């Protein structure tokens, strides 16, 4: 080994985030002490972020198979067949820690990263979504984080020309120091043109393309695997600045290249940059890589080998080009005015060998960096408080004024319309968005086909905190219910598991129980997981987040003309409530939080069988053109669903009069969050048809009212409980979030 690299010891290994045992293991496997570059690569690749060492065993339990699955977990993104020779390629990924350090750039680069994961597979991105969690908006810092993150997401997605069609936002105290930003992207590719991140042909040339490499984000991977403390704010050099303009060019160049066959494999550069992308590609193909760092286009001078190896400069890709086809690649990138440098070649020795300054400065087996990284079975333990008691309406007392209660709830940051946020996202570019954000699911059509793709992100940290198994199942249930509401059939799911410190047995238990609940629901609905992301150590000064699994489900509409929207359409239409009677339960609900400041209690029981039947009924109603509107019941219960049904995206609105039965107390009837329910409106002439479909699927269907008028009226158990003009509802619901966010 030349290059005069100093040989670090245990102290450096610990500082780089390895444990003493891991360091010992590395020395044993290498048969020697790693030099500084090797240690840098190994510590980054053995970090939680890159190795999944705490979560790998748990993730193995997900269902990942199905006839439609073209690519399950293990690649940059998952892929499922959607008919007409096309594939949907999608994934969700977290950018939590970077967002806390710098909300605008942190969130923006999260979008950039997930887009690269999708176009790396050869798919043209057609839609974006994001799931956000911030602390309460009465704290100015949280307002700044929200507005910074939203502006960053907006700028990146808008500049790329990809519509952001959905997402979700929640506010909890635990996120004041640990905000979450999970970004989702979906692309479309011909099924036979999907590219993989794999290098298996020695002699092929490795290209580094896109942006130049600088010192940004170095150690991002190990940072994302460590808890925050005061000192973290001083770690200034980690901020990466996104350049959506450059990424747009990179995307177009890559997609152009992918129409031909010069590429053997391709991988974007994210965490641990060159190291991770090259080691993963080679190890998937059982090959090695020889890389000459001197040839990497650099933005700064005097970068050390380990800095080049770990840099997380954005908007870069590693391409493996079939030998002899290099000029083709160079020509495409020249046309797009982008750097494309041949930096190495594929070898047969299984090693990642690195040259710098004219000599070899490191050599590590690729598999030691990837598959052979450690995997842990960490201890798990349920908290003593589990299971939580039920919370019944009777023990809470009723609100004095139902009108004010409804206004307060639907105007609260957790439930108010998200338009303050999604109006900052271009959700119409590409002229394919046929269900705009604000509904249960965003839907984009595929021009030239009758197909539509529906998508949604869901997850409720309060539910998961109190019962992670239920929380996981409810997240999947709600996502699939959202898709059914628009008439779509779920074909695949992705997920982002946001949790605290896995070295705490309780956190490991939450993780395992969440995955168990998700798995049960995914199994019941027959939806495979095709990929995802795990973000652990979401803790600051020992304070962790609510366990927050975010589930993204993608569904297909075989005929977009059957799309059902969520808003009421016409005076005189009848409103039906589908699904089982509600329980008298308010545990972990929005109502309990907004009116009693409590996050405790048992979340609703997931009724997977009832869910499955409801989803089938909703799809049948859509396909047969019976339902004119459909809206699932979830957070905020029936009152919230009714309010959301009043407002159409074009700015129009229409009232409704509802009457609810007497099986549960009024509070639960209005605000209970029992699962497997939906509000559907039909023309009066189709009421019988609805009843027949509901009966066929054994779904209880009750007529609860009719559409029309200038107000929302709800009778509960015979009493006129709610009577609100549309103006008053609009003022709370449509503007509540903007008021809180700008305060």
């Amino acid at each position, binding site marked *: 080994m030349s290059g005069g690299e100093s040989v670090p010891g245990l102290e450096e290994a610990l500082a780089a985030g390895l444990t003493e045992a891991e360091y010992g293991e590395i020395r044993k496997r290498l048969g020697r002490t790693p030099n500084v570059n090797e240690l840098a690569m190994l510590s980054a690749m053995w970090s939680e972020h890159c190795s999944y060492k705490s979560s790998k065993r748990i993730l193995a339990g997900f269902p990942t198979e199905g006839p439609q699955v073209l690519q399950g977990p293990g690649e940059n993104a998952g892929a499922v067949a959607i008919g007409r020779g096309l594939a949907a390629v999608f994934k969700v990924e977290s950018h939590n820690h970077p967002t806390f350090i710098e909300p605008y750039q942190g969130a923006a680069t999260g979008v950039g990263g997930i887009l690269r994961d999708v176009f790396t597979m050869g798919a043209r991105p057609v839609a974006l979504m994001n799931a956000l969690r911030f602390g309460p908006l009465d704290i100015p810092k949280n307002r700044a984080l929200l507005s910074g993150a939203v502006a960053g997401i907006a700028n990146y997605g808008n500049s790329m020309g990809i519509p952001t069609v959905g997402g979700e936002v929640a506010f909890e105290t635990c996120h004041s120091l640990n905000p979450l930003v999970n970004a989702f992207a979906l692309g479309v590719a011909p099924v036979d043109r999907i590219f993989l991140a794999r290098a298996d042909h020695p002699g092929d040339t490795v290209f580094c393309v896109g942006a130049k490499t600088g010192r940004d984000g170095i150690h991002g991977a190990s940072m994302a695997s460590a808890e925050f403390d005061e000192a973290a704010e001083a770690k200034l050099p980690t901020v990466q600045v996104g350049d959506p*303009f450059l990424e747009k*060019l990179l995307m177009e160049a890559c997609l152009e290249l992918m129409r031909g066959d010069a590429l053997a494999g391709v991988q974007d550069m994210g965490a641990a940059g060159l190291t991770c992308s090259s080691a993963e590609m080679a190890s998937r193909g059982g090959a090695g890589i020889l890389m000459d760092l001197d040839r990497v286009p650099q933005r700064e001078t005097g970068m050390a080998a380990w800095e080049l190896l770990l840099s997380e400069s954005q908007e870069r890709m590693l391409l493996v080009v079939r030998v002899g086809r290099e000029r083709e690649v160079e020509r495409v990138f020249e046309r797009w005015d982008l750097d494309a440098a041949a930096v190495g070649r594929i070898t047969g020795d299984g090693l990642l060998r690195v040259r710098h300054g004219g000599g070899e400065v490191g050599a590590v087996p690729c598999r030691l960096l990837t598959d052979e990284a450690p995997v842990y079975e960490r201890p798990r333990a349920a908290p003593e408080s589990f299971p939580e008691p039920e919370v019944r309406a009777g023990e809470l007392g009723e609100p004095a004024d139902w009108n004010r209660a409804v206004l307060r709830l639907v105007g609260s940051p957790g439930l108010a319309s998200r338009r303050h946020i999604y*109006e900052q996202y*271009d959700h*119409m*570019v590409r002229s394919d968005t046929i269900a705009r954000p604000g509904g249960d699911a965003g839907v984009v059509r595929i021009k030239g086909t009758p197909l539509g793709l529906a998508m949604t992100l869901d997850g409720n940290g309060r539910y998961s905190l109190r019962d992670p198994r239920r929380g996981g199942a409810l997240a999947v249930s709600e996502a699939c219910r959202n898709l059914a509401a628009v008439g779509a059939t779920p074909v695949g799911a992705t997920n982002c598991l946001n949790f605290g410190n896995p070295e705490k047995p309780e956190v490991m238990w939450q993780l395992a129980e969440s995955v168990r609940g998700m798995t049960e629901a995914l199994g019941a609905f027959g939806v495979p997981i095709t990929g995802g992301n795990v973000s652990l150590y979401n803790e600051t000064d020992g304070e962790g987040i609510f366990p927050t699994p975010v589930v993204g489900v993608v569904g297909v509409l075989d005929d977009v003309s059957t799309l059902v929207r969520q808003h009421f359409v016409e005076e005189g239409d009848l409103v039906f409530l589908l699904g089982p009677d509600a329980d008298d339960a308010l545990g972990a609900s929005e109502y309990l939080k907004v009116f009693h400041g409590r996050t405790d209690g048992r979340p609703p029981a997931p009724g997977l069988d009832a869910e499955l039947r409801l989803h089938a009924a909703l799809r049948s109603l859509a396909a047969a053109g019976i339902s004119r509107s459909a809206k699932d019941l979830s957070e905020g219960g029936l009152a919230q669903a009714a309010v959301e049904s009043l407002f159409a995206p074009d*700015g129009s609105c229409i009232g409704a009069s509802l009457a609810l039965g007497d099986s549960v107390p009024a509070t639960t009837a209005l605000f209970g969050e029992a699962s497997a329910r939906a509000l559907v409106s039909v023309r009066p002439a189709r009421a019988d048809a609805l009843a027949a479909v509901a009966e066929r699927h054994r779904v209880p269907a009750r007529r609860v009212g009719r559409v029309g008028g200038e107000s929302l009226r709800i009778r509960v158990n015979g009493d006129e409980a709610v009577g609100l003009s549309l103006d008053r509802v609009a003022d709370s619901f449509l503007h509540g979030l903007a008021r809180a966010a700008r305060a």
Partner: protein
Amino acid sequence: MARRRFAIPVFPGTNCEEDVLHALRAVAGQEAELVWHQERSLAGFDAAVIPGGFAHGDYLRAGALARFSPVMEPLAAMAESGRLVVGICNGFQILQEAGLLPGAMQRNRSLAYVCRDVWVRTEETGSPFTAALTPGETIRLPVGHAEGNFHLPDRDLERLEAAGQVIFRYSEPDGSLTEAANPNGSRHHIAGVRNRRGNVAALMPHPDRAWEPALGGTGGLRLFESLVRWSES
């Protein structure tokens, strides 16, 4: 009826070119081709529509760096020769920065990107975008921009108004002009303008996103109809 041939200049960072292409071809039934910004000639084209997006990243100012693209020369010549040159959104900003249309765009008053439906009121019908409309007619169209706050100094603005160069204003559905209906703070609620001669025009809202009910509106159809009618006259 002879079909016209439209050029759609595409700059690095443009992102609505496919929408405009589709609207011109499939919806308006015209011939249309994408033209990469490095082209030095627009021979064979009757008209040009500059689409929306973020040309050159919209870095420095929206539309500012596009003027360096070679295609701007034949485009200016096209405008000079009286042929139709129109811009949508970023295309508006590019035409302003190139000096082909008056005014400049400031950041939206809200300082945020805004994507939603707005109403615009037709101010005159001598422009390529309004030839098929009636004065005072209001249309619902989507906007999507961060810098659409039209500015012109007082004197120039008066001249613009006097010459009838304002083609659209943001309004309520009934045509009244209110602050709430103005999505970006534009002076005089201006949403679209034309040059004196009338052959160069642009607007901030996106007719290319509103040509069938599934998209949430069909307001854009009338504008494409106008383009076709104007280019035939």
